[in-house]
């Protein structure tokens, strides 16, 4: 595999671009859910994707780390493909083991947390560093403890996921993703499954990550969070990016009638 970053020049994109999506298309059978989506996320920035359900925003997010295969377009993460190898004019799909290596660099946080229920909190955090990256136990343990402190759950290290509240579980899930030192973190509606009073604690953790300069792509319904934290806001509808730009300007003065309509409903 080529060293990360070497493709940036090859594709003529800035070396500070973390996610580069151009004309992404995706269909399920005859249903086209993504009809040519473009998105550029610079390193260290936060992109928030909003839009009505069925707009394709979650599908697009899952295309970034190749959980969904794309049917067309160019998707580069840190200047390289995730699920393919380019030879001439053809993209050859990689075997699962090679895709896994690339995916390990892309963290993901799910709406349903998806913690491993049969492992304690610290085991959840250490599993991938130990078995995928083959880190020494002492190093993985120290990092896991530090990450748990960072999300404010140091005292829960030996609890099982089901003993935690939804907000706590999601904070553990964020820490678990961070344990792999990802280049970019993807969030798929991270607060949508939470009780309203638990949303704040998760958003706080995400804000602190944004301040630390972690590149994030967030699919969310939290317009307040997007306005405060995002560097760019993307409004998707019907499998297309309808409007994107500075979140404050876009929320205050949406250009497209569809954006205006959507924002009027959720604000």
């Amino acid at each position, binding site marked *: 595999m080529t060293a990360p970053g070497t493709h940036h020049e090859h594709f003529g994109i800035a070396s500070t671009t973390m996610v580069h999506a151009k004309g992404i298309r995706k269909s399920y059978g005859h249903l086209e859910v993504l009809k040519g989506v473009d998105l550029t996320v610079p390193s260290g920035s936060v992109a928030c994707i909003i839009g009505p359900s069925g707009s394709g925003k979650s599908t697009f997010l899952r295309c970034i780390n190749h*959980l969904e295969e794309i049917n067309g377009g160019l998707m580069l993460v840190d200047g390289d493909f995730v699920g393919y190898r380019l030879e001439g004019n053809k993209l050859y799909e990689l075997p699962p*083991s090679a895709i896994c290596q690339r995916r*390990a660099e892309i963290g993901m946080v799910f709406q349903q947390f*998806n913690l*491993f229920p*049969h492992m304690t909190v610290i085991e959840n955090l250490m599993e991938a560093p130990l*078995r*995928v990256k083959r880190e020494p136990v002492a190093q993985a343990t120290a990092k896991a403890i530090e990450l748990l402190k960072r999300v404010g759950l140091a005292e829960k290290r030996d609890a099982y996921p*089901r003993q935690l509240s939804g907000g706590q579980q999601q904070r553990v899930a964020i820490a678990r993703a961070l344990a*792999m030192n990802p280049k970019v973190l993807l969030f798929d509606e991270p607060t949508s499954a939470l009780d309203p009073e638990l949303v704040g604690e998760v958003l706080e953790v995400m804000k602190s990550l944004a301040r630390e300069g972690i590149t994030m792509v967030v699919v969310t319904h939290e317009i307040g969070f997007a306005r405060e934290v995002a560097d760019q806001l993307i409004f998707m509808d019907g499998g297309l990016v309808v409007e994107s730009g500075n979140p404050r300007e876009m929320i205050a003065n949406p250009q497209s009638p569809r954006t205006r309509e959507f924002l009027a409903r959720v604000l």
Partner: protein
Amino acid sequence: MTGSQSTRRSADKIDPEQLTIVPLRHPWRWVAVALVLVSVAGMIRSAISNPEFQWPIVAQYLFNPLILDGLWQTVLITAVVMALATLGGTIAALMMLSPSKLLSVPAAAFVWFFRGTPALVQLIIWYNLSIVVKDITLWLPGVGTVYSVSTNDIMTPLVSAIVALSLHEAGYMAEIVRSGLKSVNKGQYEASACLGMNPSLALRRIVLPQAMRIIIPPTGNETINLLKTTSLVSIIAVGDLLYSAQSIYARTFETIPLLLVVSFWYLAVVSIMSVGQFYLEKHFSRDEHRINPGITRAILGNLAKIGRKEALA
């Protein structure tokens, strides 16, 4: 109506401190208990007093070396067959869940065939394999015959029994493992994939441990079933527990006492297995506080409680 009467009394006049709650009585339960006790006592009495049971002979044969040899054979066959069937069943289950038809169709056909024909029939077919296949030969193109052996030399009664029962049992285990694997949430696969785990690592570390909770109870059932099914091998002259007892009562005609000896040992082994299952289930549900009590768990739990009470007294 008593309901309307009680509501007609002003709620202010009722002192909640004075109220007592009377639980619903179940007088018929006591009648049923009495009936059960009488019948059980009757059965025990008839078992003791009926000379045909010949209890002294039961005691005499309980630790007979021939019987213990048979018991060992039975336990050995059960253990080997279960190990092979679990392995084969897991492979078949993984094949059935594969998106590739090349894997899923043969696995489904395997399960269909070996689950669909009686164990006894399969046993006799394997035992008589030499009628159809005279020699078992490994032949490689270009190399020629590497290894050849007469079927009768390999297919001893014990080997036929193990092969036949393993294949039959693997058919059942495949379905059990498949249901266990399918019970694990799709999100678990995705979460493992996003952490860079390859499919086989995710299967070993994330999916199988969670599937075990669904897999173990029916597997315990299957093991108990298999232990008893092994008695079929007495048909093809494998010296298992039943065969040993039969060979004794063929000489002495003490049929009933020897079958009681056999039943005693089957029950003893099943009881030991149930304890093992209890601890296995406990191991794979460490994260759960409350677990639905299965029958084994209920019995063992109560025994533990009684034990504790006695220790206190």
